[in-house]
């Protein structure tokens, strides 16, 4: 059976940084990703990042992803397995993989789960019509594959993903009819919302989808205003004739491997659903299994990179590598606190406090 010291599942921002951190200490790392190239969601993030210089602020997500991928692919301590899916984790430390229709067993000493998150769906009539996409899927279609999803779009969700993808749709020459948000206020950063508003795209808060229309494909969407109890108010319906609807209504952490391993899981709405309880080192209740990135709680790429780095160093340190771990850990925790400071980090701070069983 093949063996590795540290398996990192997922080569997005968290997984890449975890693999690089662990390998830089001398650990033998296997980095696994389902896609044909590493980078995770960074491969489509054409916008510039915020944060401080340490977290590559001002650099486009695609460039950060490319740089990290090149470093990981050329690192002698990292074996990268692409187009490779983690199928299951077993209690004896065996990770089962599938790559090009081949079944592979990998005996791992440590595992870092950096599997990311999946897009949430909504339940409304005709929600299976072609033309209804996750906003992230549309961003992939446009920015990775160069395909226009359609001519007129209704965006559902005014968080950062909804706002950024709306702007990029407009840049690609697609008409964005409106952005609809169920909450009474815009969830994303004001700088993204302002760009949308300057283009003349209306943002309708306290509105949601009533139903979609169409025979074979999407032809239109009816939205309505919500009362404070989240119920639609009859008489407030508005119809948009669109051939695309994007759902940007949140992400759910991808946690199958953690459940399989028997990690203690807790539901925290602010973190996107069930996530693993863990210590300061991002180690779960199952010794040797670590979490990082959106799989550990939906946040954003900058903190995923720092969290990944911390998990990578911690996993390496637990194997006897990384003699200056405490210094590196302090630095990472300080950066995370900085990224989560201020009003934009309130939700994540609340979620992490709930996960630790504390009141915020």
């Amino acid at each position, binding site marked *: 059976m093949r063996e590795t010291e540290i398996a990192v599942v997922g080569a997005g921002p968290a997984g890449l940084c975890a693999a690089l951190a662990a390998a830089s200490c001398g650990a033998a790392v296997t980095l696994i990703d389902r896609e044909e190239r590493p980078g995770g969601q960074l491969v489509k993030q054409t916008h510039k990042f915020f944060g401080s210089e340490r977290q590559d602020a001002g650099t486009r997500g695609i460039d950060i992803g490319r740089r990290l991928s090149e470093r990981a692919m050329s690192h002698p301590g990292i074996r990268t397995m692409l187009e490779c*899916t*983690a199928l299951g984790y077993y209690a004896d430390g065996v990770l089962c993989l599938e790559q090009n229709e081949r079944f592979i067993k990998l005996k791992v000493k440590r595992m870092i789960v950096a599997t990311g998150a*999946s897009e949430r769906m909504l339940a409304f009539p005709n929600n*299976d019509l072609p033309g209804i996409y996750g906003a992230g899927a549309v961003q992939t279609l446009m920015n990775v594959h160069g395909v226009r999803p359609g001519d007129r779009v209704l965006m559902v969700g005014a968080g950062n993903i909804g706002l950024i993808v709306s702007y990029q749709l407009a840049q690609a020459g697609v008409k964005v009819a409106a952005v609809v948000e169920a909450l009474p206020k815009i969830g994303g950063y004001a700088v993204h919302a302002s760009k949308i508003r300057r283009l003349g795209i209306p943002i309708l808060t306290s509105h949601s989808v009533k139903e979609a229309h169409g025979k074979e494909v999407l032809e239109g969407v009816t939205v309505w205003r919500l009362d404070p109890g989240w119920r639609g108010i009859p008489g407030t319906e508005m119809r948009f004739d669109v051939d695309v609807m994007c759902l940007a209504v949140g992400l759910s952490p991808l946690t199958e491997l953690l459940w399989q391993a028997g990690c203690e899981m807790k539901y925290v709405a602010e973190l996107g659903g069930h996530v693993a309880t863990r210590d300061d080192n991002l180690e779960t209740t199952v010794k040797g299994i670590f979490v990082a990135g959106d799989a550990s709680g939906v946040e954003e790429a900058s903190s995923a990179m720092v969290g990944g780095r911390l998990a990578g160093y911690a996993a390496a340190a637990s194997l006897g590598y990384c003699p200056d771990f405490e210094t590196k850990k302090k630095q990472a925790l300080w950066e995370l606190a900085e990224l989560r400071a201020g009003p934009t980090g309130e939700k994540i701070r609340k979620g992490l406090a709930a996960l630790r069983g504390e009141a915020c």
Partner: protein
Amino acid sequence: MDEDRVIICRCEEVTLKRVRELLDKGLHTMDEIKRISRCGMGPCQGKTCRPLLAQEIANYLGIDVGSVALPTFRPPTKPVKLGVIARGDECD
């Protein structure tokens, strides 16, 4: 709302109408609904429908969505051809 046109599980084409029928019959857990309707047993293995079904159960029972028990997660995480598993690991 036309519950028959609301899809909860895309892979297995389980509608909201079907879910509510099962809830009315007294099937109040995700596991029971899964076993009867195959909700969550398709190619995506519940990635899309799991939160929708949990929310529907929570609404029906008047409980918090976080307290709805999820079904057991078992390998494999995605459908794999039997031949792939039958051939085994060539390194063994």
